[in-house]
């Protein structure tokens, strides 16, 4: 059963995000790059990505300025501007890739008959980055409580950090694997999906607008060569 959501199909989002980034890198040195950025920003606003865009603006500003300043040490103002444009291209692509919910991506990958070990692994990696960030914070707090400092005793600090981290990695993965096996999951069997990810009219409209805009810029790029 197809769920009615505002999200663009995850596979489309992934492909368009890649296209936007790679093309962005190609177009960085063109005088009309700012038009490219504005066009796709407007397209994202039309498709209600404003919240994600607001989230990404601080990153693009800070990272763009850092990149620009670092480039300015060795290069010209022009090079610094290109560096900022590269971050802008990354930010634009980030809007689409951040809109993908991991579980929807995995479900659509399963529908495309991508091997289950790949989709399972991808989901675990995305989910567990946050979990291990919390684990690392706890381990570092425990080290600080014991009065161990990296600056004075780096070997002891590393030991106190890596051994508990590895033990947690082992116990978490053991528990997760047992939990998956008891639910009948295996890498060679075909599983069923709780939700079917459909291609909707909204996806079609987005694809047409996106590809039309991109084609225009590719044409401008090729004409300039």
């Amino acid at each position, binding site marked *: 059963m197809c769920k009615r959501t505002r999200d663009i199909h995850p596979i489309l989002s*992934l492909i368009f*995000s*890649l296209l936007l*980034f*790679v093309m962005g*890198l*190609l177009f960085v040195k063109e005088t009309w790059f700012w038009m490219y950025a504005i066009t796709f920003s407007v397209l994202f606003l039309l498709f209600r990505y404003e919240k994600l865009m607001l989230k990404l603006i601080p990153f693009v500003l800070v*990272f763009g300025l*850092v*990149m620009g300043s*670092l*480039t300015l040490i*060795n290069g010209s103002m022009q090079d610094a501007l290109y560096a900022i444009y590269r971050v802008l291209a*990354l930010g634009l*692509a*980030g809007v689409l*890739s951040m809109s*993908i919910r991991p579980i929807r991506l995995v479900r659509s990958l399963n529908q495309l008959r991508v091997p289950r*070990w*790949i989709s*399972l*692994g*991808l989901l*675990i*990696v*995305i989910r*567990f*980055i946050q*979990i*291990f*960030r919390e684990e*690392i914070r706890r381990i570092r707090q425990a080290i600080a409580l014991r009065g161990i400092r990296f600056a004075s005793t780096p070997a002891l600090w*590393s030991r106190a950090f*890596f*051994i508990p*981290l*590895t*033990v947690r*990695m*082992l116990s*978490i*993965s*053991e528990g*997760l*694997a047992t939990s*998956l*096996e008891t639910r009948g*999951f*295996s*890498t060679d069997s075909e599983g069923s999906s709780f939700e079917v990810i459909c291609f909707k009219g909204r996806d079609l409209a987005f694809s047409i607008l996106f590809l039309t805009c991109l084609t225009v810029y590719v044409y401008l790029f090729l004409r300039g060569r």
Partner: protein
Amino acid sequence: MKSFRFQAFTVKDIVFLAVITAVTLLASGPFAPIVMTASKIGPQAFAMALPFALVTSIGLRKVKKSGSLLIIGIFSGLVLLLMAPVMFFNQFTGSLFSESLALLLFKNYENRKTVLMSSGLFAFFTLPSTAVVNILAKGKSISEQIGNPVTFALFTLGAIALGLIGAMIGNKIADELQKAGKM
């Protein structure tokens, strides 16, 4: 003589390798700004060598199957694909080349040297794909990317050395855990 063989991966193996990948990405996270701002090739591999080798060598000591490093490379590449597409090729080719070379020389992961070489040279083997992607996507020539040859050579040797040091530390951690019966 020990021979080269492929063994099927179980759910347990896949889960552990995915967890290892998550930790690898977290461990190398603080070095991401260096990787993204460096305009020459070399500093990226140098910065990533130690954390990548350290964590992946623990993973290879637990899952001693041919293809384990490639799976870590695929998982980390797929996650990085969402942020920076070029990183997918980087991770994939890096893991493929270093694991192939290690298995070609030592046949399987029963030998500790295979783990050392496979995870230790991972960062070094990302250099060729970075160069190729920079030529294709940014139009930079090899000489432009290398810049000063002495600096490039130092970064490359540093990446190999740090990778091997990281793999040795990882092996030591794995030894301790094996002694404690945790692995």
